[in-house]
């Protein structure tokens, strides 16, 4: 299951600890919420990490789907009636997939820097669409007044109004997401995806339609990105076009590179460290950009393959 000992170590430490976290924090609303946000971001970053690190499809428009996840819910759900979480999860995933399919067909015609820019372009268009719109709250964003219910056959698993419950939902989602990607990468599909990333020309010559594989991956990653955005919108019941901005995509990319591209668990690591530093410095000084920027620079120089790479070298040395 694990590619190396560092990964194993991380997963075995992280998830049990995360499970205990709300208890350790005495269910403090803010901390639990903050951690839940980090978990949500981790899902988002992980889906990007898969795309960039494992498929070689660098995008600066992943926030398109993140924001879409939130706005889709706003568009689909009736304003004041309670709705079912699982049902709407399905809706959001399904519609996001369809959108990703269309977007994918367009953007995958290009590659490299051109793909970065065309994904950016589409995300920006969407950003301006919501930002200029009157129906969707424009630049100021929109409130979501309903919290979905999570009943399955009358059994309510999570009460989304309760931060701790919401936290566990996010944790479960992140775990499933990681598991899913690991399975995906170990699968026969994953083999071809590796091949596509490393040498698309060769892979075509071997008889694979590279576009189809890329498209499949793009749809999968985008749908999960949308799922993260959906959770994010639900957390505080608020959507804003800035979810779709290129800064959101950019920050996610930074987290995933910082964590160690293509390692998946690095996405969690990167998000955790980035958000942790941000939080720490922001409470330390209003000029938090200075220590934050400097530290990022130092980390790039020091870690060849991101935090995950560093962790791996530590674990290997120990051995």
């Amino acid at each position, binding site marked *: 299951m694990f590619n190396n000992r560092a990964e194993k170590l991380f997963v075995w430490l992280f998830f049990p600890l995360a499970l205990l976290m709300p208890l350790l924090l005495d269910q403090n609303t803010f901390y639990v919420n903050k951690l839940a946000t980090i978990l949500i971001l981790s899902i988002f970053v992980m889906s990007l990490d898969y795309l960039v690190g494992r498929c070689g499809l660098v995008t600066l428009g992943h926030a398109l789907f993140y924001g879409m996840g939130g706005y889709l819910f706003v568009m689909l759900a009736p304003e004041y009636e309670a709705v079912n979480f699982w049902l709407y999860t399905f809706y959001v995933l399904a519609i996001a997939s369809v959108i990703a399919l269309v977007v994918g067909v367009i953007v995958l015609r290009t590659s490299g820097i051109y793909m970065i820019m065309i994904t950016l372009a589409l995300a920006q268009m969407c950003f301006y669409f919501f930002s200029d719109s009157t129906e969707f709250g424009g630049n100021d964003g929109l409130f979501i007044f309903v919290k979905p219910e999570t009943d399955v056959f009358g059994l309510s698993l999570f009460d989304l109004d309760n931060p701790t419950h919401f936290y566990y939902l996010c944790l479960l989602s992140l775990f499933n997401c990681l598991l899913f990607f690991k399975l995906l990468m170990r699968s*026969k599909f994953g*083999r*071809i995806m*590796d*091949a596509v990333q490393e040498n698309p020309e060769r892979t075509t*010559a*071997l008889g694979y339609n590279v576009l189809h594989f890329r498209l499949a991956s793009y749809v999968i990653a985008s749908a999960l990105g949308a799922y993260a955005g959906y959770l994010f919108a639900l957390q505080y019941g608020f959507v804003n076009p800035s979810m779709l901005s290129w800064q959101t995509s950019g920050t996610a990319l930074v987290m995933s590179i910082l964590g160690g591209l293509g390692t998946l668990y690095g996405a969690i690591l990167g998000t955790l460290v980035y958000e942790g530093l941000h939080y720490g410095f922001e409470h330390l000084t209003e000029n938090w950009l200075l220590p934050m920027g400097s530290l990022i620079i130092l980390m790039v120089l020091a870690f060849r393959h991101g935090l995950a790479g560093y962790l791996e070298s530590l674990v290997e040395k120990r051995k």
Partner: protein
Amino acid sequence: MSSIVLKPADLAPPATPCPVTDVVLQTEGLCKYWGGLKALDDLSLQFHDRRLHGIVGPNGAGKSTLLNLLCGSYAPTRGKILHNGEAIDAIRPHEFSRRGIGRGFQKTNIYPSATCLENCSIAAQRRVGGSFNIFRSRHSDRLLTEMAAQALEKVGLSHRRDAIASRISYGEQRQLEIATVLATAPSVLLLDEPMAGMGHEESQLIIQLLKSLKQDYCIVLVEHDMDAVFALSDQLTVLVDGQHLVTDSVERVRDDARVKHAYLGQGDEVI
């Protein structure tokens, strides 16, 4: 270089060196122009099953271009390509391999960070299928691993099975390249200078390999190693500056004055 250009019609039917076999691949009036440059002009050739068809010619004659056309990497400017009688010039690049047309590249083209076995597994999976299966573990398919291992064995790379492809020597990478193509279980093999950069022993190995392969496959071989070409070819085509010069048996081509003039030169390599 050569001013002698023959149209296919002028050619006497090639003396058949062995009994007539099926035509697997065929080109009709195939052209590829790069701007004003006629990299390949009006080429009509037939490639037979279980035959090795050598293609030689001076540098820039259009040999690689021909292979690129045959495997769908380039779209022809004009003309037709027929595979088992069906026109395939309009199908998409990846479908060529699905039709059993396998391609080795002139410049080594492998998956450098994967192991040799994995390189071949990727190829073999095309045959075995399940590539869109996101739940089946990639290591669980015995048949597939076997096919990949066999391909490695055929080219004599079994001892490098678990070596990372970028870390084996250039010559070994060339061998791996062929192994990958074999792993797709093709019926037509297009090879572009497979012996380039290989040592004698390895070349010898590949020659033996091709000898045995041509029992089952239609092989098109572009190669500058004359010893190999002469030893292997059932039929030999000479291209010069995008033009078809001659297609005939090895013996006749070797003695053809025009070929000597344009390509082989006289006598020994060092005068």
